[in-house]
């Protein structure tokens, strides 16, 4: 068991108001403690930068959709074979493949290699949750959790239609509990069900989804309220309607206003912040979205930055992937998932010579740079949709280094950038503490993870130590040391140990009378027995909900 003090490093721990002070960090077992006797081993970190382990609030790394993507991309994996690392902890090291959708072991090793120690899969079809747990079991080092897709669920829609809002809440609780999920996810509320019915566009939040009383607005309200009533640590996690479509900012702002006053997380906002008009013109509407978020403290978001290069678009939003398939001509997966959700996948390349890619890149950076509260607008690329998590260090450099950013801006396609704030010049450069906020402290606070994202006494000893470098991309791509729950996993820049991570999930309560009604529904419509639906044998203890 680790007993160790890290001395001499500059601590960037914004959750505890520490901004570069040189202090000791002491580790006892898996936790950070106030002090240790003078004779414990010391890790000297003089001149280095110390932060909590990184937390990815929104990525696609372990799900049926992710493995559909993996299976679709043998050509990518062939180009990026990854031999097993040499480990010193007795765990059997595993080889794998990389590319935009790496194999599971490689995913765990690579996240740890970047100093990330906690990752959430943002979109799991509840019926396939067993697969997510199995894949996470094969994804070493990182603590992991996932969000359960609920915005296009037939049973939920029925409860909304019948005005059985209490039962809708109980059902959300049952889904979370049965699948071992952490939060409620909504993808294109109602729009995936409409796509299954061959209705390809959601024009307003009040479009009917089957019954006239079931609308994207009601779905958002009911699920936002459910997350609040269940006192979930993370609010409803929303992927708005009309992702990736010109002019979608009005839908995005309407969705935010629909939930005004309620806690809600709006994800990959870059993909939802476009002005212009569908089929005609595009422009940046990042300023409008940033201004809304800035002035509404109940709202949190992550950016979903686009990075130039190869990506794989992979989402529960099947409708949008059909559009991408027809516009790019690239191969395409659609998978309609029984009674719950959908899935679409298209490989994609963001090119700095392409007008739309360049606009997307600019919109994402504007969201970062125009948001006044980094605690509420955190870093993501919606991996692998906007780019791989491996591009985070370069993204950090774009945020911290104006010279680098402006140089890059000159080289991108300018066609759609007229009037954009970034093109007009934004001087802001993120500080190290702001980077610590958008990559650790902010996600931890948004997720309600009290023991993560900071370096205070009692926190999980997930710690990343960087050597300073004027090139921030280099600095953040190769941490010198990474501790995970007190275990030194990266040493002198090399992966040395690969302990299993923990699963992070909730087990909210619900009124048992739900099960009678749900039993009848399953008997009539489901292809699975109700008794076989819940995942059993979850590892680790559940996270607390609410004050409990």
């Amino acid at each position: 068991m680790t007993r160790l003090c890290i001395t001499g490093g500059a601590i960037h721990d914004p959750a505890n108001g520490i901004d570069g002070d040189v202090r000791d960090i002491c580790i006892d077992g898996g936790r950070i403690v106030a002090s240790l006797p003078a004779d414990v081993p010391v890790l000297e970190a003089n001149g280095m930068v110390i932060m909590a382990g990184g937390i990815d609030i929104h990525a696609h790394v372990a799900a049926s959709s992710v493995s559909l993507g993996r299976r679709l991309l043998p050509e990518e994996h062939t180009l990026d074979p990854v031999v097993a690392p040499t480990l010193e902890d007795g765990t059997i090291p595993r080889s794998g493949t990389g590319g935009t959708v790496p194999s599971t072991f490689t995913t765990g090793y690579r996240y740890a290699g970047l100093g990330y120690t906690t990752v959430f899969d943002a979109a799991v079809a509840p019926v396939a949750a067993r697969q997510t747990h199995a894949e996470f079991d094969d994804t070493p080092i990182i603590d992991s959790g996932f969000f359960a897709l609920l915005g296009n669920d037939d049973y939920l829609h029925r409860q909304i239609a019948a005005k059985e809002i209490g039962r809708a809440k109980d059902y959300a609780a049952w889904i979370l509990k049965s699948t071992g999920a952490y939060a409620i996810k909504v993808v294109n509320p109602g729009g995936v069900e409409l796509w299954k019915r061959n209705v390809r566009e959601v024009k307003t939040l009040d479009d009917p989804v089957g019954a006239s009383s079931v609308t994207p607005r009601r779905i958002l309200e009911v699920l936002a309220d459910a997350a609040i009533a269940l006192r979930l640590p993370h609010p409803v996690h929303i992927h708005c309607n009309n992702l990736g479509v010109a002019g979608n900012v009005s839908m995005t702002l309407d969705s935010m206003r629909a939930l005004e006053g309620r806690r809600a997380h709006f994800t990959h906002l870059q993909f939802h912040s476009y002005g212009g008009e569908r089929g005609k013109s595009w422009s940046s509407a990042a300023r409008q979205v940033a201004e809304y978020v800035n002035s509404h403290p109940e709202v949190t978001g992550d950016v979903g930055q686009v990075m130039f290069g190869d990506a794989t678009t992979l989402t529960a939003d099947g409708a949008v992937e059909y559009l991408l398939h027809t516009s790019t001509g690239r191969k395409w997966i659609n998978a309609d998932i029984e009674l719950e959700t959908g899935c679409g996948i298209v490989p994609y390349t963001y090119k700095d010579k392409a007008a739309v890619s360049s606009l997307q890149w600019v919109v994402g950076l504007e969201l970062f740079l125009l948001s006044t509260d980094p605690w509420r607008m955190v870093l993501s690329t919606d991996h692998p949709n906007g780019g791989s998590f491996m591009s985070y260090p370069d993204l950090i450099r774009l945020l911290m280094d104006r010279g680098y950013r402006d140089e890059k801006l000159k080289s991108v396609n300018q066609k759609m950038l007229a009037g954009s704030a970034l093109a007009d010049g934004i001087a802001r450069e993120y500080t190290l503490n702001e980077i610590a906020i958008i990559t650790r402290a902010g996600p931890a606070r948004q997720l309600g993870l009290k023991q993560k994202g900071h370096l205070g006494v009692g926190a999980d000893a997930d710690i990343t130590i960087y050597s300073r470098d004027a090139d921030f991309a280099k600095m953040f791509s190769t941490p010198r040391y990474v501790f995970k729950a007190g275990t030194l996993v990266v040493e002198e820049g090399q992966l040395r140990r690969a302990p299993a991570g923990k699963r992070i999930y909730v087990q909210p309560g619900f009124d048992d009378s739900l099960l009678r009604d749900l039993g009848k529904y399953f008997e009539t419509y489901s292809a699975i027995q109700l008794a076989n639906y819940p995942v059993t044998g979850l590892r680790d203890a559940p996270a607390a909900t609410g004050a409990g």
Partner: protein
Amino acid sequence: MSRAARIEENATCLGCGCVCDDITIVIDGARITEARNACALGLRWFGDGSLPGAVVGGRTSAIEDVVGEIAAVLRSARAPLVYLAPDLTTEAQRAAIAVADQLHAFVDGVTSSTAAEGVLAAQRRGRASATLGEIRNRADVVVFWAVDPALTYPRFQSRYAPNPVGVHLPNGRRDRTVIAVDVGDQRGPDDADVRIQMSAEEEALFLESLRASLAGRTVGDPSIVARVTELATRITRARYAVIVTDAELPPEQMDAPTMRADSLIALAQALNATTRGSLCTLRGGGNRNGADMALTWQTGFPMAVDFSRGAPRYQPENAALPRLARGAIDAALVVGATTTLPTAVTDALRHTRTMVIGPRASESAIDTSIRIDTGVAGIHESGIAFRTDDIPLPLRALLPTPRDTASLLKALGAAIVAQGAGA
């Protein structure tokens, strides 16, 4: 039924890729006496649950020693193979792949011999698919393309389509149109509403013509066009059309691949220009999809993975069977049930030093001096399995055995480490 009988409800059947999870198993003593709801395939698959429990090694029959022997043989091999046979839990499949990775071995399973065509086509094109429950609740036009599920997927029609009531099909079968497409002697179901027939030789042109028709063009001679037009009209007028096909190739077709899988994917994708539709590919029993799935998430490839250079390489054109057939494998560990292996694989293994860890290993037709009997996934071992549509379902040990395949394979991994590092 004696007083000792117990009943296990909601058991999962791996008799075919439908993975029905509504089987009620009656157990009397240590024997399965009934498998209610099971079809003929399911009854055969569950059997009476009895199993041999032999451990046979070259020198000893102590389990630790036999595991050690297997480790030693694999470690000393120049080109070892780990072969994933059917009837494994996905937990055991994962552990077997781990062993192959450790050994820098080749790992493969039955998919490369029986269903590779569809996998490769889906890697070229992607796919438009739906899970079985979605088909049950949404598909109003069901096309059985050269497959009659009554024979090989017996409960498909009663559990998924066309018979059940669905959310969008309140009257069940009456709300659906069933189209049988007969290709030569590969016939669709007898009770279809519409039957379209073609010879095996006509199929490729028919599919080409059908895709052209969806794109508004006419291709092919008039005799084909009339049938094409009828089918095209029916599937494009559907609210949600599903085309059901058998992904498992009969052995005689293994050496003569057609473009059927590729064309049907393209067809199902093209349907979505105007309406909604998907392709449903049926896989055989024993958790075949689970092997593909675990390989995919651990290595990035669904079959035919070569670890010999220390990292996964995809070798679908040089899979286990051709390697075995030309003597390129010098030691093979078969994990799972050898009784359901393709005959060509069993034959090829006869010429290779082979070891078996699996149910009825001691009775295997493969001649080997090292074999360990284990349980069958979902009868004696618990874990998960994947339905033909990739939906994971729970497997419970109805008759638990002390010798769990996944644990044995982990012990094998540890033995390989103990005997010294790497190939």
